[in-house]
């Protein structure tokens, strides 16, 4: 956990200030504990593919996602291995994979502005070609400030660059 903790610390400071001025401890605690709980839950759940649906659900207004679809003339099985290699070589962190369904879950690094986004890569076989479905989503934040768009673009650019052998 890196710099975004400063923002969490700031949230806690606001809680203390709210108690000081209102004298209400329970309400202040709920107001500032709720987003912290949601954030911590998100940071735990993000690591597994089986909880992917939580972040991508249309009912979840606390996250933002962006999907891009690309085609590749590389077969799906080879593409799966290749994309794993792209993740390891680029600035992404591999979280989880599902070899049977050709799904990869990776994340971007956390920095001052973000806890990092997840990228879900789904490979759909299409004869000798394959369709790559890239979905970037935030862990906690209903607006990604174009980070999701940048993540999908950066990932695909990294993949294209890796095809120069």
């Amino acid at each position, binding site marked *: 956990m890196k710099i975004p903790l400063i923002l969490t610390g700031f949230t806690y400071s606001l809680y203390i200030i709210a108690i000081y001025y209102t004298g209400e401890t329970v309400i202040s605690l709920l107001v500032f504990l709720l987003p912290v709980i949601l954030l911590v839950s998100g940071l735990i759940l993000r690591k597994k593919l089986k909880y992917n649906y939580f972040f991508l659900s249309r009912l979840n207004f606390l996250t933002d996602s962006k999907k891009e679809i690309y085609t590749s*003339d*590389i*077969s799906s099985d*080879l593409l799966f*291995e*290749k994309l794993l*290699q792209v993740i390891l070589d680029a600035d992404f962190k591999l979280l989880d994979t599902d070899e049977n369904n050709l799904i990869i879950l990776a994340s971007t690094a956390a920095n001052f502005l973000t806890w990092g986004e997840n990228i879900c890569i789904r490979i759909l076989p299409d004869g000798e070609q394959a369709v790559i479905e890239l979905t970037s989503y935030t862990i906690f934040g209903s607006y990604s400030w174009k980070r999701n768009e940048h993540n999908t673009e950066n990932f695909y650019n990294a993949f*294209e660059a*890796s*095809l*120069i*052998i």
Partner: protein
Amino acid sequence: MAIVVNLDVVLAKRKMQLKELSEAIDISVVNLSILKKGKGKAIRFSTLDALCKILECQPGDLLEYVADEKQKHK
């Protein structure tokens, strides 16, 4: 694409496996498979140099130009 990579042909002539070649030139099996199938976007001179050195061949043995019409008939 009109450029055909005949890596599998050269490997068969040298009786070498892809994994063996991968270890020899430090390029992953995945990348060599992509190259072999002609799905790469480009090949670096350093890669071509390493392949020719290990396989003891010329670049022309690995790369072949096939006109698009001929490729369709193939």
